């Protein structure tokens, strides 16, 4: 099923489609941080308390999608390079946009980003002290939950971390700009009359994802340098003290 050239494109499209959907859910979940610590902590706690098979099932499913997506990309790129051993002396491009030409580059950087992001906020290996952030805010009666709110504020107060996240989200925006519309083409559910609409939807979606993810590190950095005051000052400086 997935061995032919077209089959490999289905695999790229199907795994890409899952990840396109995932980033939206992830972004919508993240945005709850703008509504205060109760919301985001309770949401994170609810996700963590999902039954084991559902929690780990989804995690493994997403991980398998990322691995298949990256692995298929490597196979495709190797075949494509072999198919055109010598470039034209004068190499020109008539229609393809930058985002479509740089899918391999943006994808590679995003893969590194995913690894870092998991180590940063999920495994918490980059700053192990995030593990000790516990709070009763947003927790059920008589319980302590992980203080995701403080962790995110602390995480993004490192300027280099925020810069890396925002740049990565910009690259994700480019990757989605081509990827979203490519899903439809590769699966064969696109026609010339829909092409422009799908391309615009892809661009809109890509920018929405960029803004939705970037707003949090941008607000944190803005407040760090006293440019804006969005987060509760006491809650904002608390994680600083922890560092």
């Amino acid at each position, binding site marked *: *099923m997935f061995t*032919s*050239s*077209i*089959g*490999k*494109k*289905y695999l790229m499209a199907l795994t890409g489609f899952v990840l396109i959907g995932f980033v939206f859910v992830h972004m919508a979940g993240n945005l709850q941080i703008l509504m205060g610590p109760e919301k985001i902590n309770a949401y994170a706690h609810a996700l963590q308390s999902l039954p084991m098979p559902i929690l780990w099932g989804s995690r493994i499913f997403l991980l398998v999608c990322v691995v298949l997506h990256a692995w298929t990309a490597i196979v*495709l790129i190797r*075949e*494509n390079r*072999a*198919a*055109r*051993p*010598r*470039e*034209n*002396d*004068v*190499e*020109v*491009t*008539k*229609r*393809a946009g930058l985002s*479509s*030409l740089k*899918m391999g580059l943006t994808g590679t950087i995003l893969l590194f980003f995913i690894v870092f992001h998991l180590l940063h906020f999920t495994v918490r290996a980059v700053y192990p002290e995030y593990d000790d952030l516990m709070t009763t805010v947003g927790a059920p009666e008589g319980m302590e939950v992980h203080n995701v709110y403080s962790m995110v504020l602390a995480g993004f107060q490192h300027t280099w971390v925020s810069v890396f996240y925002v740049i990565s989200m910009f690259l994700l925006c480019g990757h989605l700009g*081509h990827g979203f*519309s*490519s899903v*439809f*083409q*590769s*699966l*064969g*559910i*696109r*026609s*010339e009359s829909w*092409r422009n609409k799908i391309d615009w939807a892809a661009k809109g979606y890509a920018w929405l994802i960029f803004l939705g993810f970037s707003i949090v590190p941008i607000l944190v950095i803005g407040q760090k340098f006293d440019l804006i005051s969005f987060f509760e000052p006491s809650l904002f400086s608390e994680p600083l003290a922890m560092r």
Partner: protein
Amino acid sequence: MNLILKVWRQDGADDEGRFETHQINGVSEDSSFLEMMDQLNEQLLEEGNEPILFDHDCREGVCGTCSLTINGFAHGPENSTTTCQLHMRKFSDGETITVEPFRARAFPVVRDLVVDRSAFDRITQAGGFITVRTGSAPDGNALPVPKDDSDKAMDAAACIGCGACVASCKNASAMLFTAAKAGHLNLLPQGQAEKDKRVLSMVSAMDKSGFGNCRNYGECSAACPKDISLDYIAKLNRDHVKAKIKKIFA
């Protein structure tokens, strides 16, 4: 017009190849690109040099024999135009023009600018036909074909098999050619009986020939002298998944 031509020379498939630069003077603006190449070859012969080999046949833009990547564009910078229909007035006096063969592993260079495009023939032989009993022609109205379908089939059938799609693709993918040849028949009632088999074997022949994979750049369609749309690639993808699934459950 006076021009400087930077032309690819290659003695054979195994030769590494190199660029040669030639000055050519007194080119008429009304001559076609191939007529300019003829003029250059006459000049080379007079100087006692080997002429440059290039493919050409009808010189009317319908046979698909001419090729050439001109200044990086397959069939030159003009849209919807084959090299033989490209006129020298589209270039400026004193310009340096780079002429290269269509580059792809599946299109090995025979000599100079001539490439072997028989990989396309193998794709066509794999399924670009319908199996019918030959004999007297059937009645024209015996088989109704909706106007929309016949229009779309004719748009796909406009493919002249020149290989500009492969040459312009960064991955040397033959998807637009294969999609046009399969789509043309798959759209018509005559093509239905062998539709699934056609799609699977044509794609398999394409993969075996060493073409690259489609990355949805759209460069092929932009370079196509017959403006074949990317819709046919989407249709080929659709028909391929249907055929695969049917095969699994057959």
